[in-house]
């Protein structure tokens, strides 16, 4: 038994069977289609719901939907959203994109559908300041990457809040005042 194994081993070694098998594989692969995507000319297909650069959504009238409630900043795991309110207005809405991990929690948390992740992924820059997103830049991103109906549809399809109207469900028992 042992002898037959060694004989087989010897034959294997001296006929280079395994090497030839490997070479047959590489030759086969040589005539297969390359998987390379030649980036600037060809682009990877972006799947729907892609989480790319951030944008602040606008309503039909062209005003920012954001009310500055701060839920997104609260849930953000990397704490990269900075919001402050002044005089009943959203004074500051900044996202430090270099810290963002693109988890999408902010979009999920927002009750007004005001923040969204667009399909844009090409925004590398040589300066840190250019990547630090301020409010006006985030708003212009909405016009740039979510123009017209696209924004609404995209948002509704993938990032819709669990409920559209935030009232009480009809089956819920509610206090309707004291019985006379």
């Amino acid at each position, binding site marked *: 038994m042992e002898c037959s194994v060694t004989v087989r081993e010897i034959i294997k070694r001296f006929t280079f069977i395994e090497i030839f098998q490997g*070479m047959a594989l590489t*030759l086969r692969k*040589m005539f297969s289609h*390359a*998987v390379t995507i*030649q980036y600037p000319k060809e682009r990877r297909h972006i799947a729907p719901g892609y989480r790319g650069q951030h944008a602040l959504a606008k309503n039909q009238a062209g005003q920012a939907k954001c009310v500055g409630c701060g839920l997104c900043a609260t849930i953000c795991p990397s704490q990269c959203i900075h919001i402050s309110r002044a005089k009943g207005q959203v004074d500051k809405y900044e996202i430090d994109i270099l810290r963002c991990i693109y988890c999408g929690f902010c979009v999920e948390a927002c009750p007004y559908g005001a923040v969204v992740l667009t399909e844009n992924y090409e925004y590398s820059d040589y300066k840190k300041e250019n990547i630090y997103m301020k409010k006006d830049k985030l708003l212009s991103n909405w016009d740039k990457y979510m123009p017209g109906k696209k924004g609404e549809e995209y948002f509704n399809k993938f990032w819709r809040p669990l409920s559209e109207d935030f009232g009480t469900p009809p089956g819920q028992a509610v206090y309707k005042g004291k019985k006379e």
Partner: protein
Amino acid sequence: MDINNIISPELLDAFIKFGINLLIIILKIVIVLAIGLLHVAYATYFERKVIGHMQVRLGPMRVGWHGLLQPFADGLKLFFKEDLVPANADKVVFYIAPIIFMAASMVNLSVIPFSYSFTIADFKISPVIADINIGLLFIFAMAGIGVYGIFIAGWASNSKYAFLGGIRSAAQVISYEIAMGLSLVGVMIMAGSLNLTDIVRAQEESVFGMFAIPQIVGFVIFTIAAVAETNRTPFDMPEAESELVAGYFTEYSGFRFALFFLGEYIAMIIMASMATICFLGGWTIPWYIKVVPFIKYVPGIVWFLMKVYAFFFFFYWIRATLPRYRYDQVMGIGWKILIPVALANILVTGLVKIIITTLNGV
């Protein structure tokens, strides 16, 4: 004034003949060097292309159509790179090393015959620069000198990685040179000559048409040793990227690196040509293929280049397929397997040769 008064017509004739012969040799050198360097450039291109496709990539695609101008872009880049010399390097030796290495491999181009000899206006031109009788030995000797280039480079760099690469290269090339020389002894016995042109001629007249068939053992040993001699995967110990950065030329940059690169690829061309000449029949085709009509009108150089390219493709193919051997395995294969098998091959070849000649004598 008559020119015959100054110099006799015979002498003038001899001078003219000498001049023309000199011109022919210079022309040959220029042509061989130009074509050799062009082959080096495109050998790198096709290496990247072939290995790329074998790894399901594309290889160079950007410079020119399908990256065809990539070798020139690379060459330009190497020209304009800074020429660094390590502070504690042995300067003179550091400068000489790449020149030794490249010259040693380039000189080999002069003894490689490429095709049938032809005649132009009474001048018989053989397509080889130096048709010497010890062509085979000359190539071995030059390969031996090339090791000095590598070893000196490793030593002069004053860097541990370069030094290790140099030592490994010296050990490896010396061990595999023995196996390669012994594998070619079978060819020498069969051809009865060391002249490369004669070896090809002997193959054309032989029964099999090429020595690769009766000398299959020698051919396999030669192929393995050739891969090891040119320091290519799976025997690229001297430049093992994962262990030694880049091996013996770690400290070289710019044009000096280019010289090493050039030398390495010319050594590849030499090895492919050697395999073609000694085993695959050079520019001739076996008689059983000559039966095909019209095939005899194909010029010999085409067959020669096709065989060389096939061998080159084999180099690339092997590189894309096999991982690197461990260092002790490389030495083990060389000393414990290849050399004994090559010796046995010599013995059998010699015996068969003696038996055949005795039978023919009787």
